């Protein structure tokens, strides 16, 4: 067949739209600034995407289970501030587990509300976004948090160190992605996450404890957020209260770009990793062609809309709704 019908073009566009748009984008940006495709730049993109990426791994579980997590940005601020504060008070060896425990408690609270009380996850986590922000400010008294002795602490290894020439944040991201990817794809728990998100009622009728599964997804999300907070704190050794502000949307954009459906039941860790990289390259490319940093907030929104649109379009096989 030499000619494609209009409908076939539409289907291909809808299904592969993100990848096509991404390819066009890469070519255009390389033409605009050849530095874009240099090894140095590629490396820097991956490194700067690691924090976002780690958070996106956890949110992938939540989204596949059919829920949302909009609290990850302010929860990451919380983790960062807490670990920096405790670093000077009780030392890094105790500060890190203490911060993880506190962050997991927040995750457990959200998991309880969404899983066991069956409250709407959008409302719960949107509220928690604000509540945790307040908690962080109360904790810090509104002050920036800085480590006193920035030179003499081994704490900086998580954000600034490298092994075999690879930065530690990238190593953490890759290791966590591999671990969680296998968990989601290969274990009974992973299967249950897909079942609960795909059809919660049918999962219940199959003897799956739905509340427990959703609860576990939020715990995993909180664990990833704590890890991201650790990398962030370790990289800068000092932080504002608002360091994670707005990240929730970028994380969501990466997860959706990776092809996870907001309706639940589909998605995968490796797809999310691709989504994270696409987002990272786009933001980097915009900076390289000389646009202001702040443009990326608008771009993130555009990407979310585009990704959601193409997801829906792929499902109905048309770009436009026949009914609307």
């Amino acid at each position, binding site marked *: 067949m030499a000619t494609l019908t209009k409908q076939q073009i539409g289907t291909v566009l809808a299904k592969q739209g993100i990848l096509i748009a991404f390819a066009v984008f890469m070519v255009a940006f390389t033409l605009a600034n050849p530095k874009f495709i240099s090894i140095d730049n590629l490396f820097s993109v991956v490194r700067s995407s690691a924090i976002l990426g780690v958070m996106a791994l956890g949110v992938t579980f939540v989204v596949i289970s059919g829920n949302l997590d909009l609290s990850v940005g302010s929860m990451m601020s919380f983790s960062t501030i807490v670990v920096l504060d405790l670093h000077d008070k009780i030392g890094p060896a105790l500060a890190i587990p203490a911060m993880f425990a506190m962050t997991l408690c927040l995750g457990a609270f959200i998991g309880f509300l969404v899983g066991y009380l069956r409250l709407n996850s959008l409302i719960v986590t949107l509220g928690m976004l604000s509540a945790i922000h307040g908690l962080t400010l109360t904790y810090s008294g509104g002050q920036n948090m800085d480590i006193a002795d920035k030179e003499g602490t081994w704490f900086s290894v998580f954000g600034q160190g490298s092994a075999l020439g690879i930065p530690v944040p990238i190593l953490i991201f890759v290791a966590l992605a591999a671990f969680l990817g*296998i968990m989601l794809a*290969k*274990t*009974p728990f*992973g*299967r*249950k996450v*897909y*079942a609960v998100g*795909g*059809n919660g*009622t*049918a*999962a*219940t*009728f*199959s*003897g*799956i*404890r739905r509340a427990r599964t959703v609860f576990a997804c939020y715990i995993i999300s909180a664990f990833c957020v704590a890890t991201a907070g650790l990398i962030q704190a370790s990289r800068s050794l000092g932080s504002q209260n608002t360091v994670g502000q707005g990240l929730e949307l970028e994380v969501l954009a990466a997860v959706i770009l990776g092809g996870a459906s907001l309706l639940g*039941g*589909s998605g995968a860790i490796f797809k999310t990793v691709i989504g994270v990289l696409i987002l990272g390259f786009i933001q980097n490319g915009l900076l390289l062609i000389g646009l202001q940093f702040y443009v990326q907030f608008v771009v993130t929104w555009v990407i979310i809309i585009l990704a959601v649109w193409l997801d829906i379009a792929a499902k109905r096989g048309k770009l436009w709704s*026949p009914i609307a």
Partner: protein
Amino acid sequence: MTDPVLHLDDIVKTFPGVRALDGVSFSVMPGEVHALMGENGAGKSTLMKVLGGIYQPDGGSIHVGKERVTMAGPLEAKAKGIVFIHQELSLAEELSVAENIYLGELPRKSFGRVDWHRLAEQTNLILQKLNVGFDATTRVGDLSIANQQMVEIARALTVDAKAVIFDEPTASLTDAEKVVLFDVISDLQKEGVGIIYISHRMEEIFKITDRISILRDGQYQGTVNTAETHEEAVTQMMIGRKLDLSRNETHHELGDVALEVRGLSCGKLYEDISFEVRRGEVVGFYGLVGAGRTEIAETLFGLRDPSAGQILLDGEEVRITSPNDAIARGISLVPEDRKGQGLVLGMNCRDNMTLPQVQDLTSGPFVAEGAEVAIFDQYRDRLDIRTPGWKQLVGNLSGGNQQKIVIGKWLSMHPNVLIVDEPTRGIDVGSKSEIHKLLRELAAQGYAVMVISSEMPEVLHVADRIVAMYSGRIMRTFTSEEVTEDSLIQAISGLGGHEAA
């Protein structure tokens, strides 16, 4: 000889790799009820989508009256007087009956305000024709399913309908509600409207239709006059072989009592329910929708807490607190709503089938996928599930094959008690009789089986004993030898039934 209101001539529709419709012709005369029958996948839905303008045919022509037409879309079909009453209702529950009927074309006054007065008047005129017990201002959400269907029909009557297509209209109606629907159909008939009636239910087809057209594998098998044929002949045309419609006469050797229920109650849903199911026995639960049968099954499966009474498994009293608990105690439930409760449609066949036992099917920390495939293969062969492979998404299978996946899922748990709720709802005749045969075989193998069904031929066909329920109570229990259709109907209507254990 009058002209047909609707005539389809040699319609061909192909999809990549499939010839979904292969030269289908048929016509509907004014005032005729014309049944369209065929197994799932025979091409009925595709044909209706071609007629409704959702698909464009690759060959053949459609004529409305004498005019040859091309249906560009659903709106055009409606404008030409071809009206569809779908199986799944599409009504706005929070709006009134009148608003639903005239949605999108509400009568207007000045400044675009709605003319409520005229709206109510127009609506009540139509409702009078339908002879229903509600009026224009009733909120649709407050109506029964049957009455909601009446609203759909009323919507169809706002245009000058030439042909009305009913797609499985009785799937969720009670027997009394069906009578009302059939009255409406006969009124439409008198007005000279042609009716296309799609249904799997033979009794209805023979009761209300004039002619029957049959499709098999996308091919037109022929049209017969209803009065000159009988069920077996039609079935044979549909599936190409004979169907066994007799009542159950075989009995298997009965084992111990696997499940006993004593005085079980759950608020007002059902009260004082006592029965037992032995190994090797199929007990049928027959009654109208809302008689409390599904609720009993849900209680036994740990989805509801009983307010009184005892449940005994193998003679031992148990409290079943959750589905997980029920599964651990060897109870399996094939639920009533296949798509809503039975399957994760976006998951593949294998994963759906092994879902209840995925926690135990492990090697190390991982799911043992090899063992899963082995289970899937075993039940695919045993139940004759037709799918290209285990990777196929369940949502892409036909209704009958989907139901077999659900049954396979629960058989693979090797239950002591198997509860099946409406096992053949909405699936075709061929798969239906296979499932009936399977239920009998399971009993022969020593399973204790509870079958809940709203179809009399089904309970007659599979059950050793039949429990008749009415309004949350057991009216009478019959053995398959003593049961007659009349006594059964009386019992489930609350007439002349005697309390019997």
